[in-house]
């Protein structure tokens, strides 16, 4: 470190500081400042990055929403399908039961089926509530009329 030791010829620290200040001031005067065009480009980049980040964030959210909606649709559809199937089955069962009961009743009441409606009506029997068993009655929420 001998070469770093001060000699009597070396300039003083104060003189060095002064020289550095002058040089720094010269650099400061010459240094470029961001022009409007550069600032505009930088701000455009900032806006574009914001938009890109927002799009990246919103894509998974949209996908999640889509999945939720699709799931909801699927479940609703499944419920409707099951309901339709059950409803259809129930309707079919009801029709069968009604038919059987109707045939049974009309068969008993009147072998001529074309007369049955009139007979039933005369007897005050509502064919829609005619069921063949308690189980069927409970399935349809109706009470057995006999």
């Amino acid at each position, binding site marked *: 470190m001998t070469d770093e030791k001060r000699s009597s010829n070396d300039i003083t620290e104060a003189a060095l500081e002064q020289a550095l200040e002058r040089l720094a001031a010269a650099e400061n005067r010459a240094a470029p400042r961001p022009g409007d065009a*550069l600032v505009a480009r930088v701000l455009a*980049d900032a806006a574009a*990055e914001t938009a890109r980040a927002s799009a990246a964030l919103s894509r998974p959210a949209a996908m999640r929403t889509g999945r939720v909606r699709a799931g909801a649709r699927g479940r609703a559809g499944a419920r409707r399908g099951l309901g339709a199937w059950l409803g259809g089955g129930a309707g079919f069962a009801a029709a069968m039961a009604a038919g059987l009961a109707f045939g049974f009743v009309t068969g008993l009441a009147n072998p001529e089926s074309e007369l049955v409606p009139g007979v039933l009506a005369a007897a005050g029997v509502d064919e829609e509530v005619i069921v063949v068993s308690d189980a069927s009655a409970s399935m349809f929420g109706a009470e057995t009329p006999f």
Partner: protein
Amino acid sequence: MRGHSQGWPRGQGVQIVRMAGMFDVSEHEEEAALLARYAAGDQAAARALTEQFLPLALRQAWRVLGSEAEAEEVAQEAMLKLWRQAPSWRAGEARVSTWLYRVTQNLCIDRIRRRRATANVDDLPEPADPAPGVLERLSASDDMRRLARAIMALPQRQRDALVMRHFDGASNPDIAERLDCSVEAVESLLARARRQLQKELAPEAPE
């Protein structure tokens, strides 16, 4: 408690509120808060960050590259990296100015390497000289030119520390953060640099 007049650039609509007597908002926190606001989509925060940091990046790049056009490209690229970093910025880990300094420096080094692409880069020393010619061109007098040449001849870390201290006005802790060393190491670098400059600028002894 620092006051409002810290040269903090305020973009339109940007208000950093210091509540006197309650708590002090450090510059780190202000920078991080601005970045967080930008990441949340606040373009006024982007303007404030641009006002504060673009001039630093531009000047640093110009000093290293010596070309205003190239410096503008590097500064824009450095700011773009800042925008991309904003959402994952972790407050308290580094100052934005320090982070940007390193990014800008790396971008400049990449450019210098590309300039030297025809040569075998592996055989070349690191592009140590951040400003060959810039300071010298500015030096009107012989003394100033001698000083500029002496600065350029300093070992890289001594020169970096000296330039940051005297040309950027950076504090020793800031320099330490940028150079990834202790404050004591910065003081040592600066002391050695100054001694070398004093020696180099000594009047030549009459024969």
